[in-house]
């Protein structure tokens, strides 16, 4: 049983991070949780003896996906902001 404790902790972290990523509704905040999910998955993969997959997940999950999400939010917000100003005038 003791052998399984690290994997168990990894699973719990992944499940919690995944749940958090769904329940956090604001995309900027969600991007933080998504990057955490990426990190948790990488840790779990290493514990499951898959360093190749962990590397991929790190590369994609910790930098690429959050960056794309943040850039999209920025574009969308910029749009929304100018819309609102327009209505204001």
């Amino acid at each position, binding site marked *: 049983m003791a052998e399984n404790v690290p994997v168990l902790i990894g699973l719990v972290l992944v499940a919690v991070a995944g749940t958090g990523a769904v329940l956090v509704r604001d995309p900027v*905040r969600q991007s933080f949780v998504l990057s955490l999910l990426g990190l948790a998955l990488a840790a779990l993969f290493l514990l499951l003896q898959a360093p190749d997959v962990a590397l991929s997940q790190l590369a994609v999950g910790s930098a690429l996906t959050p960056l794309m999400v943040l850039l999209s939010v920025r574009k969308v917000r910029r749009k929304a902001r100018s819309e609102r100003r327009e209505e204001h005038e």
Partner: protein
Amino acid sequence: MNGWTAAGTALLLCGVAPAACATATGPVSRRVPAQNLTTTLLSLVFLLLAQGFGRTAYVDTALVLSVLGPAGTLLYVRLLADRLAARPPRPRSLLATTALNYVAVPAVVVPLCFATGPGRALVKLLVIGGLLVLGSRTASRAVTAAVTAGHGLAGSAEGMSDG
């Protein structure tokens, strides 16, 4: 399960998990430093696990994370500059986070160095340690700079918040 694995697991549970909690909650000004702390600690976990599993090949994951982690943090700082400026973090908590980084890195890397012995693996370890320290130092500086220079920096072209 040997001591290294146990130490790695313990750090995962008692170090990474709380840092992750801090990243997932609260204002952006707390999330960004906490995110950096999370990646630093996770790199250390990877190092400990690599030693525990007896696989030097696994060290590459820590190496990659030690450069991608700070890069991610700096991107957050860059893209969320105005939010950081709007609610700056307390200097004391920022200091504490950085200090935690500074303490944790040598606390893990030094024993690992002794366990590894001289060789290529040692150089790799030291590089990772150096990158982690440098990365966390820069991250905290970047947050401070974004806060102080904040309002000027967060012009309309760079802004993120809805104003």
